[in-house]
């Protein structure tokens, strides 16, 4: 749709505001993979509750607004094996690299972090190759 980029920009600004709010409020970097993983680390109880609060809100807010805002489906693959392998790779990769699109991408690039920029280039490149291989060569997606 021709209007998609406007929604992208508006949503993007909201994502940036979410990151700015967490940074200036709690002094924490908004990285989704780290916050999700943090729900399983109970060593620091105070931080654990914060992580739980963030991820819960990340789950509940879209649940409440997906109908009123008329958000479309995810169009995710129905192939359980493909989805499971992808999930494992994303989980393992983001922990090994210590960040994902939000941590390295949104928060890292905006502070001109070389690690964030390098990670973002690596996962975008790998993602593009992945789409070429699995979609155009193998026809798996």
């Amino acid at each position, binding site marked *: 749709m021709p209007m*998609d980029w406007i929604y992208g920009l508006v949503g993007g600004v909201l994502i940036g*505001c979410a990151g700015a709010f967490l940074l200036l409020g709690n002094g924490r970097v908004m990285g989704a993979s780290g916050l999700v993983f943090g729900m399983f680390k109970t060593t620091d109880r105070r931080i654990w509750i914060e992580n739980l609060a963030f991820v819960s809100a990340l789950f509940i807010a879209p649940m409440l607004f997906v109908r009123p805002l008329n958000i479309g489906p995810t169009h995710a693959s129905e192939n359980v094996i493909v989805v499971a392998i992808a999930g494992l790779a994303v989980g393992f990769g983001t922990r090994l690299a210590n960040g994902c699109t939000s941590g390295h991408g949104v928060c890292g690039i905006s502070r001109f972090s070389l690690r964030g920029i390098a990670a973002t280039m690596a996962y975008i490149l790998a993602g593009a190759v992945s789409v070429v291989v699995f979609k155009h060569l193998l026809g798996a997606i």
Partner: protein
Amino acid sequence: MRILISLVSGALFGLGLIISGMTDTKKVQGWLDIFGEWDPTLAFVMGGAMLPMVIAWKATQVRTPLTADKFPAANTAGIDRDLIIGSVFFGIGWGLAGLCPGPAIASLSFGGSSGVVFASAMIIGMLSTRRLQAFFRKAENTSKTIT
């Protein structure tokens, strides 16, 4: 207060993700699909997110966080092997499913069984990272001793 800030930030993040279209795996894969029908939306999302974040990082130079003593220090590890190998693994999975950790959680309530399978596998992947890392290190050392 810190919990409230976490809740508001998480909710804003979730709304931003669904409004921007980043919970639609076809849009994300479309952005990565340089040989197909390329979809530029993700670039606008990233660009839009940069604006408030650049200002926020600037602000960290002149003030302290509302509820903490100091801002997080930058990781000084530099561009190491784990960062690149991890990001490559992440990218492969990202391209394959069109989901990354944020949208995976944000779409969990409306993404059907595929979304649940992805999020579960992602969490299993996260929790087994240390073990997998140890396994790869061992395999690498073994191959080194052989050669």
